[in-house]
């Protein structure tokens, strides 16, 4: 330690130090001979230097006084060793003589009589002196001891924590900061300390504590001078958490970071504030000790804030990197909309950012995950333009396709796979996966031929591919769906041979059993089913299906009793809704054929009791009602059905309620039965029945509910239809159309109302109801009403393409559960309109041949077949056309509109065949049916007749009575 230099002072004091030095050099023996300056004088000189803020001048003198006092020399009254040591230590500290200051402070600490105030002050001086000599570890216990002082506690903890930090004792530092923050006042120093603590936690990997610390500071932002530091720490914390997979925590950290401009502006404002405060304090003429301390503290915070600001200013792409981090963590947490906003912003506003390519990839994923596929397409376009060779391109499209598939947007999935194929071809590592995905998509869309084509290409391109097993099985299933049963069966057997432990073995063996059933080989089906049940575990998800197939085989073999048992076994196992419905319906059918009505009712009642919320509860009510009606137990049936109806009557999405409404209408509207020996009772008046409908359906709150009210009207219209009062039926359906908005109506009623409006010649009004079905109830069983109705309207408008698309959708999309006949006929009409006569003829022949559709559809189909043949115009075709027209007017008299048309066309065909008399006879026959007079063909035929008659050879008269023989009035000879 260098010796303190004796300070210069006034001339009066100069001589004495020189003398003292001389004495010291002369040795102790001289001491008695040279008089010493009295201690009071020295202390007065010290006082003078300290008052003049020249502690450097005082330290030497104080050292001398201390030595003399320690040697036993008396101190003047009012001065003790304790005070002397403290002043000396303080003076040495202020002149940066840290070793001596520490020595003096320690000496004071050892004075037995030292008071607690001086003791703690001495500890602070020693602690600081040690720390400033970088003896941090030694300083820690000294500061810890100084914490006893209420005056110095906060400072001791702060400096103790800092020392521990510098000494690498991070846990000690953290613990000390924690104690400090728990007890100290929440001021700017507190915030500063908290920031340091967060920094320590981060370095120690205590992310949870760092998060808590940052959250605390966020709640006290007004106290944080180093706002840039706070943001940088948030960034560090976010990165640490993100790397650790804690995206929620990372997101919370990133969300607290301001953008660069805002942050810089905020930090500059705070720096300016601190500088103003400093300026004010420095301007004070005589700053107090407190004010001087404030200056030092503000200075310290100011320097740190400036350093942090400089760091922020140096980070290139601060905002872009923040955007990317935010977007990434939002996305990982499922916040795909927020992620998309951020990626879009990054792409648009930071064209030079290194994260831009990644951002495009993230953007496509985000849009795909949000189901915004139009945006996916657009962003794929932009991405491939901006980064044509990006390795992320195929990945992005693959993920988009995957997301589309997860949302059942199979068409969208195919679009993305197509884009990937178009842009990147097979030159991607994902080509194989995408190929199989494409085949699956086609299969799901029931485009089996295309599925087969893709899967065959896959098997050719990737014979050892990782999805070869799936591809082989998919090929077999595609053939099965396409009706190539034997080819499919062969492939299934090959599959079982090549993949005996494969993923699809259970299904493959089920398919073979089903194939046996389809071929009518019930015995083999039964054998294969039994073997399947023996080979696969009880919990296998297909077990119920196998029991159901086994039951079918048993029924096919006439072993109904066993079949019923097997169906019940299936019922006790998990089944899809479709399979469940099938099994229940089959059981009901068998019970009915065996006249075991109670058993059927008991089964449905048990089902309804066990699964009160299952959609098939309505099926249960339907079947119970039908069975009870058949037994003549009408009231029982009505009670049960109306109870179920009331449960769902206000909910338009429960479209199957209409099935029950029709059942109620059937029960109520049936003609009353006559008792034996009694006259048939008079039918109940409509008003009475309609009141009963209201009472059964509109109970309580439902009375004011529009959906329930519409359903009551619908039931009444069904009663009118059963009673063949078409006028009343249409009037009631018209009331529904005028009183209720389409969105208040269930799909079944929408379809009926739409049909009524279309029949009444109001296609525009009908269109609203049909469109509501396909937009709001696309999965309803009544969805085909919407597609067929819109197809009919398109036909009326002469738009063959749209009509064909609508009728196709009725079958392909909606399954055409109610309108298959109309859809098929509609497709034929649309094809005729488009001039595709072969396609139309095939469809019309299908309609005409379908016995179940025998009726007006057959009449129309035959008539249209005649029209097609007529258009072709060869003699054979004309003869064929004639046959069709004659079949219509001879066999389908119940449908006068077609009869009238057929007569006219028949006459015209005879005319073209040159059979004038037959043509006239046909017209005459037509005109015997006065009820056909209302049709325009009547007049057209009448207009045709004179033209035909003019062609008759002279003297030939066709009698007006078509049954009368033809007479020839030979001309009289002249």
């Amino acid at each position, binding site marked *: 330690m260098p010796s303190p230099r004796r300070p210069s002072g006034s001339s009066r004091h100069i001589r004495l130090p020189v003398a003292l030095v001389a004495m010291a050099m002369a040795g102790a023996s001289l001491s008695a001979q040279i008089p010493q300056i009295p201690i009071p004088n020295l202390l007065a000189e010290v006082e003078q230097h300290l008052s003049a803020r020249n502690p450097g001048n005082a330290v030497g003198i104080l050292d001398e006084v201390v030595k003399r006092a320690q040697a036993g020399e008396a101190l003047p009254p009012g001065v003790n060793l304790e005070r002397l040591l403290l002043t000396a230590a*303080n003076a040495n*500290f*202020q002149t940066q003589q840290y070793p001596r200051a520490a020595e003096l402070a320690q000496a004071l600490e050892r004075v037995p009589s030292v008071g607690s105030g001086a003791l703690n*002050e001495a500890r*602070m*001086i020693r602690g*600081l002196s040690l*720390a*400033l000599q970088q003896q941090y570890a030694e300083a820690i216990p000294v500061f810890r001891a100084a914490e006893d002082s209420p*005056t*110095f506690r*906060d*400072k001791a903890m702060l*400096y103790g924590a*800092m020392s521990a*930090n*510098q000494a690498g004792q991070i846990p000690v530092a953290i613990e000390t900061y924690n104690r400090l923050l728990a007890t100290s*006042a929440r*001021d700017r*120093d507190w915030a500063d300390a908290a*920031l*340091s603590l967060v*920094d320590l936690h981060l370095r120690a990997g205590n992310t949870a504590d760092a998060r808590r610390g940052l959250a605390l500071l*966020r709640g006290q932002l007004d106290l944080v001078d*180093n706002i840039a*530091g706070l943001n*940088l720490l948030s960034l*560090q914390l*976010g990165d640490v958490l993100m790397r650790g997979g804690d995206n929620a925590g990372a997101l919370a950290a*990133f*969300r607290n*970071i*301001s*953008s660069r401009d*805002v942050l810089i502006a905020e930090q500059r404002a705070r720096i300016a504030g601190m500088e103003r405060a400093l300026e004010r304090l420095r301007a004070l003429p005589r700053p107090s*000790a*407190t*004010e*001087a*301390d404030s200056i*030092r*503290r503000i200075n*310290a915070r100011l320097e*740190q804030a400036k*350093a*942090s600001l400089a*760091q922020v200013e140096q980070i290139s792409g601060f905002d872009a*990197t923040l955007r*990317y981090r935010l*977007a990434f963590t*939002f996305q990982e947490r*499922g*916040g795909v*909309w*927020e*992620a998309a*906003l951020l990626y879009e912003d990054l792409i648009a506003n930071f064209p030079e950012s*290194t*994260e831009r390519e990644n951002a495009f990839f993230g953007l496509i994923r985000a849009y795909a995950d*949000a189901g915004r596929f139009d945006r996916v397409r657009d962003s794929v376009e932009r991405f491939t333009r901006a980064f044509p060779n990006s390795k992320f391109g195929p990945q992005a499209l693959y993920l988009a396709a995957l997301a589309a598939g997860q949302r059942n947007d199979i068409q969208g999935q195919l679009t993305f796979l197509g884009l990937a194929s178009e842009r990147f071809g097979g030159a991607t590592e994902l080509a194989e996966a995408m190929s199989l995905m494409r085949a699956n998509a086609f299969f799901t869309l029931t485009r089996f031929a295309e599925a087969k084509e893709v899967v065959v290409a896959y098997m050719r391109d990737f014979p050892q591919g990782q999805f070869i097993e799936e591809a082989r099985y998919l090929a077999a299933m595609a053939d099965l769906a396409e009706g190539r049963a034997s080819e499919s069966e062969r492939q299934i057997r090959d599959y079982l041979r090549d993949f005996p432990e494969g993923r699809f073995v259970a299904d493959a063996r089920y398919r073979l059993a089903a194939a046996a059933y389809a071929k009518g080989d019930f015995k083999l089906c039964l054998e294969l089913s039994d073997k399947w049940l023996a080979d696969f575990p009880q919990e296998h998800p297909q077990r119920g299906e196998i029991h159901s197939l086994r039951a079918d085989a048993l029924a096919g073999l006439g072993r109904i009793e066993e079949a019923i048992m097997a169906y019940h076994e299936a019922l006790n196992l998990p089944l899809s809704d479709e399979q469940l419905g099938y099994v229940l319906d089959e059981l009901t059918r068998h019970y009915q054929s065996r006249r075991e009505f109670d058993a059927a009712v008991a089964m449905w009642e048990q089902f309804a009791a066990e699964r009160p919320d299952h959609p098939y509860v309505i099926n249960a009510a339907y079947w119970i009602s039908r069975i009870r009606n058949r037994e003549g137990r009408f009231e029982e049936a009505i009670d049960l059905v109306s109870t179920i109806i009331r449960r769902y009557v206000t909910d338009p999405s429960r479209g199957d309620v209409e099935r029950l409404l029709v059942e109620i209408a059937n029960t109520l509207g049936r003609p009353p039965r006559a008792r034996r020996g009694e006259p048939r009772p008079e039918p109940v008046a409509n008003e009475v029945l309609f009141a009963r409908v209201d009472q059964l359906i509109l109970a309580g709150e439902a009375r004011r509910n529009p959906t329930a009210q519409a359903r009551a009207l619908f039931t009444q219209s069904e009663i009118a239809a059963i009673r063949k009062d078409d006028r009343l039926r249409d009037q009631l359906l018209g009331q529904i159309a005028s009183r209720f908005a389409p969105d208040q109506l269930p799909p079944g009623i929408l379809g009926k109302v739409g049909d009524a409006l279309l029949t009444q010649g109001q296609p525009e009004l009908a269109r609203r109801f049909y469109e509501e079905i396909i937009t709001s109830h696309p999965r309803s069983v009544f969805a085909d009403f919407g597609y067929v109705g819109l197809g009919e309207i398109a036909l009326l408008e002469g738009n063959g393409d749209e009509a064909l698309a609508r009728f196709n959708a009725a079958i392909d999309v909606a399954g055409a559960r109610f309108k298959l006949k109309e859809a098929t006929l509609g497709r034929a009409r649309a094809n005729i309109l488009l001039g595709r006569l072969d396609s139309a003829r095939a469809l019309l022949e299908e309609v005409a041949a379908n016995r179940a559709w025998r009726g007006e559809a057959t009449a129309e189909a035959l008539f249209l077949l005649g029209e097609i043949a007529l258009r072709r115009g060869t003699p054979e075709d004309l003869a064929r056309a004639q046959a069709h027209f004659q079949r219509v007017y001879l066999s389908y008299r119940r449908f006068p509109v077609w009869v009238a048309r057929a007569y006219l066309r028949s006459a015209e065909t005879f005319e073209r065949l040159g059979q004038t008399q037959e043509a006239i006879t046909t017209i005459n026959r037509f005109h015997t049916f006065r009820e056909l007079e209302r049709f325009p063909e009547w007049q057209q035929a009448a207009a045709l007749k004179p033209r035909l008659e003019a062609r008759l050879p002279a003297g030939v008269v066709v009698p007006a009575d078509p049954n009368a023989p033809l007479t020839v009035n030979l001309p009289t000879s002249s």
Partner: protein
Amino acid sequence: MPSSPTLVLRHWSFVISAAATLALPTFAHAQRYQLRDGTILQAADVTLGSGALVQQVALPGGGSFERRFQLADVIRLDFPEPEALDEARRLVIAGKGAEALALVEPVVRQFAPFPRLPGSHWPRAAQLRLEALLLGTDNAAISSAARELMQSGLGPEITGVAKLALAQLDARAGRESLANVMLEEIVREAPPAIQARAWLLRGELAAARASHAEALESFLRIPAFFGTIDELMPAALLGAARAYRGFGDNGRAERSALELIDTYPDTLQAATARREFQL
């Protein structure tokens, strides 16, 4: 992704010592006016007269006289922020406009002669008054308060607040296109806090039109771009939850509502979300 910068905090060079100066500083707030010539006037010693601060000076022999200090000579105010402002803020957040207005009006009047002086609490008080008014239906008062703020020349933030209020008035009156013109200007030019409010209003307008995707993109800008503005988050989350539901994404709708309820449980919006989403 580049790594984040490392922050170095605290250095011993900042610690300068003096045992005598180790005591913590204490601060006491004065209430005083500073004049151009350096004169400091204690607020308790003067009253606010017409165009001047008036001081009654007592004479030793009894009696007194008035000294007048022109308001134009006041260059700085040194007043603690009135507690009424924080309380009014809480009331505004709680949707209690009338109560907030009662607290904030006296502060507005007190500082009205010095709206632009450093240390004046008029800007915050006037903003709070506008926010409180917006909770009610007195459109004339809202319009007047907004225009007063716009004319104060207190910078883009205050002007943005005023423009936003005018946009809200247009929206209320069904003049959506006019409101959108103003909002477009705000999101282009205003400081972030005001931009965020403008996006909220845009979200509300889109939601009213049942344009759910547009509403979502507007509401979600708040968490995405303005995550530090915590006070707007409840409204943004509620708006987003409703828009998700309208869009048909019930999962995300419920998640947004739950986030609102969990993070801001005591807000009006959380109560609304509990009711609307039955959570």
